């Protein structure tokens, strides 16, 4: 029955209060292994993972454990917080000139999505910032790259400057700037050819284009699916050019996108936009704080942490605990407790997420409806009855009336009454015993065994 699980919940609450208050090395090591694997599977660079987990380990050591979490979840929380910090706490806007022509250079490996993104970015600037945008086709190498940009430009009604594929890209951009000035454009987006970061000739070409255009933004376009090599690519481009931002493309796939973290950690370059679909409006301002949890995975733990942080008022929980310990626990308190639990979502779902609850014997029997029924019963009580449970205990007339009023059976009402009674007694007893014993109890060690461990004549606790 639900009530027994509630009791379990209280035990866990006690454990959190009387048990581990701070993270010890063991807790951290245990969780770090999993976090390491999770980050590696998300394609975060091996060295970045190592550095990051070492740093977090130090940070986490001795950290206080938040009420409502167990040590493992607390470590996940710290890791997620640090990841978020590392990724940057807010979106970084483009730094464009307020007057004159701003130049944005799109660079990256082949197939990262530069041309598509150039178009998307143009549309974004035109629409949201009301810029007068021109695209420049400076990829003269890939077959039909110019056609592609022209098609994109046509769809978006953004002019494309091109001189075919026979003219040196340096000349093209020089002429394009002149053309933009004459045409009254204020934003020029240069689509460069995809190149390997180790191709010196082509990298030199980029360096020259950056010099010629005095680019305001050099945006490195990176495929969100990139693996360990992301660090090499980003570093090489960043060494050659002053990359001002990254655009993470194909983020609408099912990749975890660990490359974002690697790039951010190694180069410090912020990720400014994310490509989230094949259509030309599917470009979003990048929100680094949302990316952290995607990379880390562990979604269920994170959502629990979020809920615990949002919903549980610590003071409320504390006063509840005090009441329980004093043995003056009444139906009003029980109702409050139910509310607290319901605020956190479906009861059975939340129980599964709670530390240690998975092992509770009656796990499967937890029924959200039971909570409803108990609430109905309590709500059929008079205010006096709620605050003074003895009234109900003593009178079968009251119990019958409550049963009728709530639409539940008398048996159920009786059960609730006796459960509250039992709970009161238990809590009173608990408040008289030593904390260590409680901890052992809560961790599920059978009492009989606990007794044996303590030796003859030293036990004798009765539950």
């Amino acid at each position, binding site marked *: 029955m639900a009530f027994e699980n509630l009791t379990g919940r209280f035990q866990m609450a006690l454990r959190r209060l009387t048990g581990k208050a701070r993270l010890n090395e063991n807790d951290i090591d245990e969780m770090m292994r999993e976090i390491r*694997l999770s980050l*590696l*599977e*998300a*394609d975060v*660079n*091996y060295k970045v993972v190592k550095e990051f987990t070492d740093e977090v380990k130090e940070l986490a050591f001795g950290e206080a454990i938040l009420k409502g979490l167990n040590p493992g979840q607390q470590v996940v929380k710290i890791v997620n917080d640090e990841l978020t910090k590392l990724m940057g706490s807010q979106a970084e806007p483009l730094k464009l000139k307020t007057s004159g022509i701003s130049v944005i250079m799109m660079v990256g*490996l*082949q*197939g*990262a*999505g530069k*041309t*598509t993104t150039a178009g998307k970015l143009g549309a974004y600037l035109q629409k949201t910032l009301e810029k007068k945008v021109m695209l420049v086709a400076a990829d003269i*190498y*890939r*077959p*039909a*790259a*110019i*056609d*592609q*940009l*022209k*098609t*994109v430009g046509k*769809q978006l009604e953004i002019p494309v400057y091109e001189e075919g594929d026979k003219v040196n890209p340096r000349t093209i951009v020089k002429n394009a700037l002149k053309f933009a000035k004459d045409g009254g454009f204020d934003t020029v987006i240069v689509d460069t050819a995809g190149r*390997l*970061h*180790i191709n010196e000739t082509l990298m030199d070409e980029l360096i020259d284009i950056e010099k010629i255009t005095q680019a305001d933004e050099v945006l490195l376009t990176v*495929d969100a*699916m*990139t*693996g*360990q*090599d*992301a660090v*090499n*690519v980003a570093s090489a481009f960043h060494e050659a050019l002053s990359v001002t931002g990254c655009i993470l*493309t*194909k983020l*609408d*796939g*099912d*990749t*975890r996108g*660990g*490359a974002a973290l690697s790039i951010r950690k190694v180069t410090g370059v912020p990720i400014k936009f994310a490509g989230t679909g*094949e259509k030309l409006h599917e470009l979003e301002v990048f929100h680094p704080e949302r990316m952290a949890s995607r990379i880390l995975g562990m979604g269920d733990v994170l959502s629990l942490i979020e809920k615990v942080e949002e919903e549980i008022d610590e003071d409320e929980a504390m006063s509840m605990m005090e009441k329980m310990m004093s043995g003056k626990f009444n139906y009003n308190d029980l109702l409050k407790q139910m509310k607290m639990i319901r605020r956190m979502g479906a009861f059975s779902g939340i129980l599964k997420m709670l530390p240690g609850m998975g092992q509770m014997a009656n796990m499967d029997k937890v029924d959200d409806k039971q909570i409803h029924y108990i609430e109905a019963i309590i709500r059929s009580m008079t205010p006096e009855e709620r605050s003074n449970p003895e009234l109900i205990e003593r009178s079968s007339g009251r119990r019958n009336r409550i049963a009728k009023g709530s639409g539940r059976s008398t048996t159920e009402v009786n059960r609730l009454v006796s459960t509250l009674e039992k709970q009161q007694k238990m809590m009173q007893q608990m408040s008289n015993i030593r904390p260590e014993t409680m901890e052992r109890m809560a961790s599920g060690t059978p009492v009989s065994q606990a007794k044996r461990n303590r030796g003859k004549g030293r036990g004798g606790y009765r539950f």
Partner: protein
Amino acid sequence: MTMGLFSKLFSSKEKTAQREKYKIGMMKTRKGALSGLKEVLSSSKKVDEALFDHLEELFIMADIGVNTTVKLIQQLRDVTKKQKIEDPRQLESVIVDTMFETYLKGQTVNTNIRFEKNGLTVILFVGVNGTGKTTSIGKLAYQLKQSGKQVMLAAADTFRAGAIDQLKVWGSRVGCEVISKEAGSDPSSVVFDAIRKAKSQSVDVLLVDTAGRLQNKVNLMKELDKIQRTIAKELGKNAQETYLVVDATTGQNGLSQAKIFSEVTPITGIVLTKLDGTAKGGIVLAIRDELSIPISFVGLGEKLTDLDYFDIEDYIYGLFADLFEGEGSHGSNR
């Protein structure tokens, strides 16, 4: 586990030229992941946990992935224990042999194109966006043409801007006909037309270019299913080869790609592109390990000739090129 494989790797002189290409392709920077192997082995005094940790790092850095890496390391542990190997230098051959056997899985891997003896062979290229499908088709068309086959291309990527033009450029470079419709047409109808036309003109090989699609887009995957069904209907069977094109820089998502694409249409092999960068493309080893899909071709550069049949020996050689370099002129003196 035999030492024979390792010495075989050193001795086959005739392969030096091709191997050189892999080496150049994969070793353009010395910073690349697995090139640290030699250093790790020579700086370690004994075979211990620290050494295995180093190896683990090298494998992960090559995108081989956690699962396959853990498996490889475990095998290495077992072998060193069984053979009582204490000198790290002796590990070289064990590592190469272990990777070799992990790839082969006790099978004979034949990645040659399964040409139809009499009639049309259809090769379908699929993959996520930007992996190099169109370029790989251009390169393969050139090679097939060189070998005397009559080749036709089908522009079934009707979605991406400029995709049809791009394939047409390749068609005219290589000198083969490109079947296309206007942008936005149903790709299956392009394939339908192309197969009919190819049959009527007694074309030997039809290479079908498809739009890049992320594997989690259900509608696009259905479109691919329709393309394969059209081929099956017109050809009487699935395309003889369906290649999944994977970018060597791809990380662990490559596994998801291989898994979900093969759920929609049987994948007969992988084309690993852009291996001429610093990425090692180790994810294909994980794909082979977990899904048994072999690698058929590798793209090693931007020239028409830069597409080669995959050779596991050469690939391992490329991964550990620095290891072999010190051993003499590519080990031919062993």
